[in-house]
């Protein structure tokens, strides 16, 4: 378990001081696939490097299973990193790279050999053991970097955007591979990415970061279905934002008045919102055009875009604003609606999330 407590990092160069981390607190549980998600410059990599020991926090504490990490140099922390550029040692073979950490820990030679063989098998690189790192492909380098970091059996594996250099197909494969490695080794993974899809598919929990702060922590479904703030809703997935009036709130259930005047039953964060004007976030695939129970937003169909798996409907709402819906396609489905049709966007009870700001 990693406990990060009120950690701040302020970089002071010749320019203005830059706050990379602003009073960040988070607890990462044992055996968890934990993702730090955010745009570039949000502080996610800085936080990772604080855990690794490459950056000293300006203030705050970091502990691993109760043991203070900040006072330890990187080479004394039971934590290993998979670097964005992989940082494989170019003067060593694949096997020598994987053995490096074990050798630095002065493990007996037989044990090193055994672990290296296991690691090679784990990442399916046994045949490549004696290749130079320059003689293998990007995906293979990625797997060697993983094996090298896993070989010393760290308590925590830190991954700094490790998939960003791979092409689309390979990235999909490696996402599954990473998930497999995490469950097979039972090591806590802390994964940094700016790719929301990567975060949603792999993580047990996600911390969404922006401007040095953690904006929301939760499971992928939580984060996607119930974003707490506009930044989170905007950064992850596509969202419609509606200006609504919050009428009443009870726990996480709320009633709002839509611009159309209809009252809708929606979700709200447990705290931080009060009756009055608020923003409502609605995912394009959560709303419906085919009626049913719920609050209604009438409008005119402005555009229909076919995407293969689904169709996007752009609706100009009466009273201003545009709403985008997304509906799953069925085989040989006839296109019944055309541009200019009058339509009703329906929000079923529980669809829509009130945002904190």
């Amino acid at each position, binding site marked *: 378990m990693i406990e990060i407590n009120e950690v701040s990092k302020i970089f002071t160069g010749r320019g203005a001081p830059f706050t990379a981390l602003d009073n960040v607190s988070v607890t990462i549980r044992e055996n968890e696939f934990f993702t730090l998600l955010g745009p570039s410059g949000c502080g996610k990599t800085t936080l990772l490097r604080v855990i*690794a*020991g*490459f950056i000293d926090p300006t203030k705050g504490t970091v502990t691993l299973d109760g043991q203070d990490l900040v006072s330890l*140099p*990187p*080479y*004394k922390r039971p*934590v*290993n*990193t998979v*670097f964005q*550029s992989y*940082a*494989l*040692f*170019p*003067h060593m073979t694949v096997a020598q790279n994987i053995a*490096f*950490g074990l050798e*630095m*820990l002065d493990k007996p030679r037989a044990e090193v050999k055994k672990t290296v063989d296991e690691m090679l098998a784990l990442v399916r690189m046994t045949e490549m053991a004696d290749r130079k790192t320059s003689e293998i492909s990007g995906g293979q380098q990625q797997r060697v970097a993983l094996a*090298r*970091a896993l070989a*010393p059996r760290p308590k925590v594996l830190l991954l700094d955007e490790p998939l960003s250099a791979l092409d689309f197909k390979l990235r999909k494969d490696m996402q599954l591979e990473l998930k497999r490695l995490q469950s097979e080794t039972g090591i806590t993974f802390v994964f940094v990415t700016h790719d929301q899809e990567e975060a949603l598919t792999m993580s047990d929990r996600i911390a969404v970061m922006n401007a040095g702060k953690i904006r929301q922590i939760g499971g992928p479904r939580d984060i996607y279905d119930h974003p707490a703030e506009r930044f989170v809703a905007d950064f992850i997935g596509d969202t419609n934002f509606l200006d609504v009036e919050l009428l009443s709130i009870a726990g996480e259930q709320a009633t709002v008045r839509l611009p159309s005047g209809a009252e809708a039953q929606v979700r709200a964060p447990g705290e931080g919102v009060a009756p009055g004007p608020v923003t409502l976030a609605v995912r394009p695939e959560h709303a419906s055009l085919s009626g049913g129970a719920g609050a209604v937003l009438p409008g005119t169909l402005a555009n229909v875009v076919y995407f293969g798996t689904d169709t996007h409907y752009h609706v100009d709402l009466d009273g201003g604003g545009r709403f985008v819906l997304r509906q799953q396609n069925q085989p040989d489905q006839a296109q019944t609606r055309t541009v200019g049709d009058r339509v009703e966007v329906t929000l079923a009870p529980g669809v829509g999330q009130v945002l904190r700001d």
Partner: protein
Amino acid sequence: MSDAATKRATRSRWLLLAPALAVLVFAASGPLLIVLIYSFLTPGDYGGVEWNLSWDAWFSVIMEQDFFTDEIGFADAHLSIFWRSIKLSLMTALLTFIFGFPTAYFIATRPKEKRDIWMLLIIIPFWTNLLIRTFAIMELIRAEGTVNSALLALGIIDEPIQMLFTEFAILLGMAYVYLPLMVLPIYASLERFDFTLVEAGYDLYATRWRVLRKVIFPLAKPGVIAGSILVFVPSLGAYVTPRVLGGGKQLMLGNLIELQFGAGRNWPLGAALSLTLLAIVMVALILYVRAAGNEEVRHG
């Protein structure tokens, strides 16, 4: 292609090669050939050579015939000069490495815009006349020089230390003069060095010292090898530095050769000594490159 076109292509190829060939023949092979021929002739009375075929010069490179007893023995004077040259050149390479590596590392780890300034500071002395720099060293270490005066004034020593005209003086002078030749190639290999690898080393439980030994040094090795060669080779043939700082007492090969073409009036011996120097350099390079690992040199 027709015959005429082939001929034209051949001719223009030779034309393009001409400058390189001219340099090779007139500037490199030619003089060397003359030196080789001279080494098998006999000395003229007032310098120059007599055109008589003779092994005498080569013989006297390492052997000598006693003037009075006609006994044949090793030319101790020559051998001790060979030994001193090799020893001082090796020590110069070692000394420049000890000071040059941290210097190059320091510069390579500065922010990009500041590196050029540091490099300039390393290179500036190189633009100054060698003789002037050597006399500056002389001024520093002579009996009434800066170092001795300071030490005397501080009461650390009671009488000046004899530093000038010793092997130490030559070593100091050569290390100072050739330091940039060590720093530059090491810097070149460290400049391309990916310092994430250092972090990867720390991350994988390597202490600072082990990161230096296992990660930084192996990757800087091509630069170290190049630097050692660049320092060792001119050190072995150094003339000005041992002449000034050795004061004619501590001869090195360069001085010995000069002596044969000058006061000694034994051009064939000078020629034979020159070729011996060349042979020593080549043997040393082959041994060194073998020991340092062929691969790095080829790739570097």
